């Protein structure tokens, strides 16, 4: 199952698509994603705090959404796992 999830990510599928294809609950997939992050297969990218503080200098700071979608990448370890 883990490899199927990693493959789904490498193919650019959405988490909803991966969950549907694996007949898995979305929350269960999110749990697995968190686990895979801890195991070092995936990294999650959020807007980092230093970027947010840099954003504050922008005159359009308030215009810009600070709640963009969260995205996940395969690490080198993750890529090796599905080779």
């Amino acid at each position: 199952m883990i490899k199927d999830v990693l493959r789904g990510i490498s193919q650019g599928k959405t988490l909803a698509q991966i969950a549907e294809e694996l007949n898995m609950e979305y929350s269960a997939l999110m749990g697995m994603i968190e686990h895979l992050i801890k195991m070092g297969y995936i990294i999650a990218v959020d807007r980092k705090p230093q970027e947010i503080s840099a954003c504050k200098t922008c005159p359009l700071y308030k215009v810009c959404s600070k709640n963009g979608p969260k995205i996940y990448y395969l690490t080198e370890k993750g890529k090796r796992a599905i080779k």
Partner: protein
Amino acid sequence: MLIALAGNPNTGKSSLFNAITGAHQHIGNWPGVTVEKKEGTITFEGKKITIVDLPGTYSLTAYSLEEVITRNFILEEEPDVVVDVIDATNLERNLYLLTELMELTDRIVIALNMFDEAKKKYKLDVKKMRELLGLPVIPTVAIKDKGIKDLLHACLHGYFKPKKLSYPEDVENRVEKLQRMMENLDLKNKRWHAIKLLENDSEVRKKFANLGRKDILHEAEHLRHEIEDIYGDDIETLIASFRYSFAHGLFHEVAEPLNVGGVTITDMIDHVVAHKIFGLPIFLVVMYLSFEFVFVVAAPFQDAIDLIFNGKTLASGQHINGLIDISYHWMASFMPNWASSFINYGMLRGLAAVLTFTPIIMFLFLILSILEDSGYLARVAFLMDKLMRKIGLEGRGIISLMLGFGCNVPAVMSTRALKNERERELSIALNPLIPCGARIQVFAFITAIFFKHNQALVMWSLILLSMGVVALLGYVYSKTIFKGKAEPFVMELPPYRVPSLKGIFIHMWEKSEGFLRKAGTIIVGAAGIIWLLAALPWGVQFGGENSYIGQIAHFLAPVGAPFGITPESIIALFFGFFAKEVVIDVFYVLYGTKEALFAAMTPLQAYSLLLFILFYTPCVATLATIYNETKSTKFVLFVILEGFALALFFSFLAYTIGSFLGVGG
């Protein structure tokens, strides 16, 4: 008797702890750490019971302090019963921890918490779950005190005959081999230790190193490699996969989702709006309709504000003075003419320019807030990713490009998150070609004046063109100067929801306030400078050919001629280098009214100007940020030249073709 409560975070574990212990609880810390430890004592059926609330965890690896505390407590303190508090509404997710707990202890009672909510989501077969696991399973609703007595009763008298989670024979044989090597050691739960050694668990390895049993560690390493060779996988993935498969299988045995096929409203909407073929055309239609809505709804408000400040010229030729003219004449009665002119035709007119366009900005942000709060904008990022992947640009760079629609400064900064240098440079090079919020405001200003019947279409064409150019250049760059392989990624899309009216208005106000605040400082200030250039040297006609601004315009006139760009527009473009919104002010101060501006340019010239603004050099703040991020003057020059080349190309193309065809002249 000792009972430990384990479970994922947010399963209602604390509520259950409170429901069981009431006021009889003590809060402290786990030894040596600052993780909170809650303990309570009760008497149930004549038996004194101590309840310990363990930290919430999703698994029992050695990656976090909470996990280590939980597993060490169960292993070393050997509670009589471990209650696994499961959020029954997210059953599958919670079952993974159960698989790990079952390796630690046989005496587990499962509390299916939030059972009332879960019944709305699945048909749960509790009896079957008990049979399959060989453990007591008790439905509870902790916040309503339901099922608490049954749970405690099961802890005291439950039937514990758990089914073991077994791994394939190749793994089990090696687990047993390690267990045999531990026979003489004073260790609790040798099987668990053997599995953890195979998993290469750092804490357990440390434990064996401290025991001086390097032989076991070497053997574990050897066996681990054997298993990895057999399965072609690293052991951690392998063992976690077995546990996930067990949890997945168990879930499907005991839970039947009530919505047919598990399809949610979000899924249904996504099948249409995030469709691989229809998604993009739907987005283009949404964008077009949004612009149409903004212009149609904002128009009466704009006209009213314009009338208040600038008055109106009637069909008979009679001019009704607006606030600016009235104020000018009134002030001129007690102060020098130049001072009254500066205040009214410089500062007040700058303010009027801002206020006239506030309705458009507010409605634009209203629409954006609705699209964002509903969850649609996240789908747009997803759709763009799909498109960009096809042309060789992908990864986090897409997110930074999307941020560019707000402001290019944080968008360029956000490329720091890119670990791939090639993607980072590619993203920075393309970012200034995305029209930021300020450019979009200028587009709205010009289209509202020159394209009364096709405002939305013109705006739409500009955004579409910028996206097309970014896609095309992205493709060319990724095959030439920024060659390399991009990082694949997956995006978490939030569920759709109906945005609350209050939320939308707060959101809209926050965004509009940013525009108004800026208007109160930079824009009005710039209006003052432009007024001075138009009024000096003293005595010349305001904005006439002998004024400084007139002289600059005269000097620049040949430059813009091939593109249909007027000298005044070139001055506006020059000031736009400092902040794009200032372009609006320059036009207002130079021309006075919308009608005068309309008379100074043909729609074709206006469109050519829009194309120029779309691409020409980003503002000074963006360039400074690009320099900060790249520390390369060459890169900054590249971005400036790229912008000017595209601006000149498209303006020239549009103006030449338009003139040739006699369109918009």
